[in-house]
């Protein structure tokens, strides 16, 4: 009889994805398994690469905007707003008050949409089917509202450089207000299903524990970071749009595990709901688009009036170059549902970006995935992919 020690074992290499339904897109993970434990996890990305950064260099600022909602397509408006904020800071364009409130409102609506998709996918991955159905029902209300707002349900193309595209109707505001009235009850419904559920506890508590310091070092942002106990939210630390004029809290987790990240996002539902309500209540009158902002027919040649002198509050640094146009660079970050979305734009004073680089939260989160997975069981990999909330369109760009 062989004793257990004499049996030679070797690692099993398992390919997870790219067509795996629980990888939230075309993500391929190569897992080295020792029994059921993950020894090594190697993410392979790039299946959805569309060359957005390069492509946007050949388009003017306003016409590159429709591409930006293809980053994180479940939260399209948030990405567009991030881009518009970056370009506005670069060109020193003011945004009218009303537009700021509308933008804040739509960004929070889309945050709810995105978190709903996350909750639905996360729950169905772990095995709770009903949450998926209920949350999709409520997302539908928001999509209908978006359709009323700008004529599109998913890829809105709603903000413009210097404001938003069209004003909101009273019907829309009524609809949004009604939604904020009933949404807290709906969150309770989701919570009734999973919040105290023992299966949910076992699948999420104590899994994927990443301490605060390590989370910062890994470059995590958004609810994934806040679940690790770091109260870092761009909406608070460097407010844009109307975030400095509305009240909201930043939910923070304690135990740094999958469950706490889930709690964080559930609380963000309530905070977003609060922000939307305040925006509707405080909505000022006035224009929604700065008349001096570059229009859709902006020319690709040098920008004439008032050259790209950045506004004082923007932290643009002029870079000296020996010859040729004056270069200006800017890094502008906004808080999208998944985390920190940053646009780094180098401008040579023309209507096109000289170079654009997009810092997307999903890319950073996937790079942290090996740290999350290694040492855990295969079944937990699914929960861990869910907890970092990724969209591959954003990761691969």
């Amino acid at each position, binding site marked *: 009889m062989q004793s257990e020690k004499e049996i030679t074992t070797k690692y099993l290499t398992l390919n997870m994805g790219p067509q795996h339904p629980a990888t939230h897109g075309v993500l391929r993970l190569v897992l080295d398994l020792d029994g059921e434990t993950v020894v090594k996890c190697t993410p392979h990305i790039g299946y959805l690469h569309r060359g957005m950064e390069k492509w946007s260099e050949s*388009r003017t600022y*306003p*016409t*590159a*905007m*429709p*591409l930006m909602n293809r980053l994180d397509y479940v939260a399209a408006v948030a990405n567009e707003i991030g881009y518009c904020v970056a370009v506005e800071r670069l060109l020193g364009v003011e945004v009218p008050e*009303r537009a700021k409130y509308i933008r804040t409102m739509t960004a929070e609506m889309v945050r709810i949409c995105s978190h709903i998709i996350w909750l639905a996918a996360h729950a169905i991955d772990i095995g709770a089917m*009903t949450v998926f159905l*209920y949350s999709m*029902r409520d997302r*539908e209300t928001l999509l*209908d509202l978006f*359709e*009323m707002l*700008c*004529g*599109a349900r998913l*890829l809105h*193309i709603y903000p413009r450089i210097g404001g938003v*595209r*069209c*004003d909101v*109707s009273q019907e829309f505001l009524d609809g949004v207000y009604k939604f904020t009235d009933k949404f807290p009850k709906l969150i309770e*419904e989701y919570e*009734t*299903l*999973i*919040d*105290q*559920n*023992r299966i949910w506890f076992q699948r999420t508590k104590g899994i994927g524990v990443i301490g605060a310091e390590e989370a910062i070092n890994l470059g995590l942002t958004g609810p994934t970071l806040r679940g690790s106990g770091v109260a870092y939210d761009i909406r608070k630390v460097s407010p844009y749009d109307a975030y400095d004029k509305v009240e909201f809290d930043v939910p923070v987790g304690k135990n740094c595990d999958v469950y706490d990240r889930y709690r964080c996002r559930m609380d963000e539902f309530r905070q977003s709901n609060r922000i939307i309500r305040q925006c509707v209540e405080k909505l000022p009158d006035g*224009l*929604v*688009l700065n*008349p001096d902002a570059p*229009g*859709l*027919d902006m020319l690709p040649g040098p920008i004439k009036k008032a050259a790209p002198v950045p506004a004082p509050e923007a932290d643009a640094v002029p870079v000296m170059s020996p010859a040729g146009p004056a270069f200006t660079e800017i890094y502008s970050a906004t808080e999208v549902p998944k985390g920190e979305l940053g646009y780094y734009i180098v401008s040579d004073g023309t209507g096109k970006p000289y170079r654009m680089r997009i810092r997307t939260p999903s890319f950073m989160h996937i790079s942290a995935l090996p740290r999350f997975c290694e040492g855990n069981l295969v079944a937990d990999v699914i929960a861990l992919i869910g907890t970092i909330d990724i969209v591959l369109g954003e990761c691969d760009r």
Partner: protein
Amino acid sequence: MTLKQFIKRIFLIEIMQGMALTLKMMFTHAVTRQFPEERRDPIPGFRGRHAFVRDSKTGKEKCIMCMKCSTVCPSQCIYISKQKREEDGKFYLAQFDIEALRCIFCGYCVEVCPVCALVLTEEFEYSAYTKEEIYFTREKLLANWDEFAAKQKVETYFNKFWRPEGLDTSKMTKFKREQGPVLLKPGAATPEAAQVPAEKETA
């Protein structure tokens, strides 16, 4: 473990609560729409299939060949060609094609057009078996409008992207500022719908 926790554990309280919710839901009305049989009207302003507005006076499109839409189109799927007529030396629109398979339905073309000639109608079911059917030539664009107009129950139509609400109108063209609802059915022309763009006469 306190007694309360123990009771919760034994009697599956939280699971029962969840089950009770799903049971309750069984008796509420269904939210699913049985699509082909049960339809919802698209919300006004939905960005769907393109069309050329048929001018109720001339019976043709209103385009003045300014090329703005093809310049601004993010996916560059509008092809326009204007040519000089031999007899009078005036320009005419020789070709106006929209390759809708590449279009992203952003509505920029509708918004920049100085004479409100283009429109994204609320029509969204137009899938086809061949590429040619979704390659909209000028005639097809006009036909799209007729088809859209025939389906409407109201008399006039105004697209919200022709002159978006809340924008400063002083920089828009005069035509755009004064654009009113257009007539959907040919027939009695209302004053605001019967305007012919002044620029059209320029040689």
